[in-house]
């Protein structure tokens, strides 16, 4: 028996070692193997044969951008292209700096390795985009995707050239200001064309998640620092905020944002539902982030702060330069996890606030004349779930990459 196992070919050996080591293993393998095969086969049968994807095909625009005015689509295209150019420049600068400092991972890669690395990172997103493009019958989306790709690549190319160079602090600071201004200006441009209240479909989910992530991060850090502060009042405010927000379900907070604001402000100046949703997401996520960051702060050894003190750094610099960078780095997985949660939780806004988001859209299209009463909600939900999965999975993979880059756990 043992001899036979040892003389087998590697693949066989692996199977025997991992799947059929004991009789119990064998039984479990057979039972769960056939069960998984059955489920996979049914799923494949549904996705590739039985599902009537025309409901998605016909409503793709509605699901992705809601009722974004057709004559304003060029605004959307321009903004998205600008943002991909911007993202490319940032990625390029980061890569260029790494090359300059000699810490770059990609610098040592052959073009083939580089391509497969990019494929592993963004293949899923690109593949999904391609799939969506194939579902459209107009040229606009293709043009947009093409321009996005060109923008991203051109941005990375030029960004790297900036990144490898040493810039004087003044130029660097001006550059940072400009880079920070780009998304704000783009946002203003989009809002001036189409008011926030009309941001619907997947655009709502994406922009609400982005706003929530960007705004909740600094607020969460401030709350975490506040909770550890020696100033009694600041500490109390932080604790009350964190514990109050963490003690309520997000759905309840969203419902409150929907109905209670009128008690405090006149209806005429009350912000739109989209803004209320974004604010609620920010408030909610910040409370959780604060606890995550607090955990990170506690994970930094006391000696770090003492060494910084002994060198004569001011308390603010001890925190900003020594403790906080390490604290944030130590809790990257938990932070990204919170952001992924937020991304998915944006679907709650549809029900709680009556916003026409991706999920609400999925419900609405099954009520259209052509599709009503045919059980097509499954197709709609599978599509919605798939899009969120692509986004969440990519974020999770990128967080793991970031973790490795920053060397968490390799100290």
């Amino acid at each position: 028996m043992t001899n036979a196992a040892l003389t087998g070919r590697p693949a066989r050996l692996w199977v025997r070692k991992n799947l059929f080591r004991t009789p119990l293993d064998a039984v479990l393998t057979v039972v769960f193997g056939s069960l998984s095969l059955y489920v996979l086969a049914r799923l494949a049968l549904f996705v590739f044969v039985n599902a009537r994807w025309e409901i998605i095909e016909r409503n793709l625009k509605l699901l992705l951008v809601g009722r974004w005015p057709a004559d304003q689509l060029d605004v959307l295209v321009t903004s998205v292209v600008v943002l991909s150019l911007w993202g490319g420049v940032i990625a390029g600068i980061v890569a260029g700096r790494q090359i300059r400092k000699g810490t770059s991972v990609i610098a040592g890669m052959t073009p083939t390795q580089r391509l497969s690395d990019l494929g592993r990172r963004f293949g899923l997103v690109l593949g999904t985009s391609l799939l969506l493009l194939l579902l459209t019958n107009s040229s606009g989306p293709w043009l947009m995707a093409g321009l996005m790709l060109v923008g991203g690549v051109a941005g990375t190319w030029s960004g790297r050239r900036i990144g490898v160079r040493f810039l004087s602090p003044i130029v660097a600071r001006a550059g940072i200001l400009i880079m920070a201004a780009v998304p704000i200006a783009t946002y203003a441009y989009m809002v001036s064309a189409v008011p926030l209240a009309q941001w619907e479909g997947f655009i709502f989910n994406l922009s609400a998640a982005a706003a929530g992530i960007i705004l909740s991060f600094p607020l969460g850090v401030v709350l975490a620092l506040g909770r550890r502060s020696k100033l009694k009042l600041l500490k109390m405010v932080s604790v009350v905020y964190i514990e109050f927000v963490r003690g309520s379900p997000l759905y309840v907070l969203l419902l409150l944002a929907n109905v209670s604001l009128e008690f405090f402000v006149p209806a005429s100046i009350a912000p739109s539902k989209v803004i209320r949703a974004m604010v609620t997401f920010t408030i909610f996520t910040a409370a959780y982030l604060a606890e995550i960051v607090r955990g990170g702060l506690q994970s930094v050894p006391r000696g770090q702060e003492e060494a910084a003190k002994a060198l004569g750094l001011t308390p603010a610099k001890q925190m900003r330069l020594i403790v906080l960078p390490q604290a944030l780095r130590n809790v990257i997985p938990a932070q990204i996890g919170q952001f992924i949660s937020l991304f998915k939780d944006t679907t709650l806004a549809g029900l709680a606030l009556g916003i026409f988001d991706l999920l609400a859209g999925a419900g609405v299209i099954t009520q259209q004349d052509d599709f009503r009463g045919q059980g097509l909600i499954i197709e709609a939900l599978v599509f919605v779930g798939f899009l969120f999965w692509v986004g969440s999975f990519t974020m999770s993979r990128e967080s793991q990459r970031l973790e490795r880059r920053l060397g968490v756990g390799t100290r």
Partner: protein
Amino acid sequence: MSDTNQSVYADATKAVGEAILELQHVDKFFGTFQALRDINLNVGRQEVVVVIGPSGSGKSTMIRCINRLEEHDGGRIIVDGIELSEDVKNIQEVRRETGMVFQQFNLFPHLTVLDNVTLAPRQVRRMPKSEAEALGMQLLEQVRIPEQAKKYPGQLSGGQQQRVAIARSLAMKPKVMLFDEPTSALDPEMIGEVLDTMKDLARGGMTMIVVTHEMGFAREVADRVVFMADGQIVEVGTPEHFFTSPREDRTKLFLSQIL
């Protein structure tokens, strides 16, 4: 009893030359536990004082009071004419004047070796980057690891890390260097390289207070040896006097245990 105490004080406060550091009747409590009892010690310029004693005797606490990592509860601590008080400005100034090397190195793991060394000159002394890096490289050469400048602390051996930590403290051009058991966390084969660096420093005229268990170092480098027990300074003397003819019974007991 009071007689011996008197003589101990007289000895401890007698610095070699002009005093750069004065501890006068320093007390320190942790809750109700008294960690330091009426500590009196003067340290002269360019003097090397080695502090020894059993664990829990207050050695670390004493030097941690000197740069205010611990707050003393009574008495006075004066570093180069600046008295430590609640005044934040004084504390910052004293910390700029004193460098400290820790048992656990406490290098900043997220910064390169060179950035560890240049951080304080740039952030505290506002030295331009190029100047700070030139200084940093010079110091890394002094501790004999310039080739590790671009690496991160985690990639270095314990001995190398501790030498970086010494370079990092020196970057602030301190007038006094405090060493808190700098070799206690090291593998035996790395202790030598760190002690050699410290010997170089002592020969270069640095004022040093070293808490250590390395009796060889004390014998060779120290101008004076301070023996502490139960939060008190029990005996002070030259290495020669100290290791050959200690006066106090506590000292004799301690030396018989470790030698």
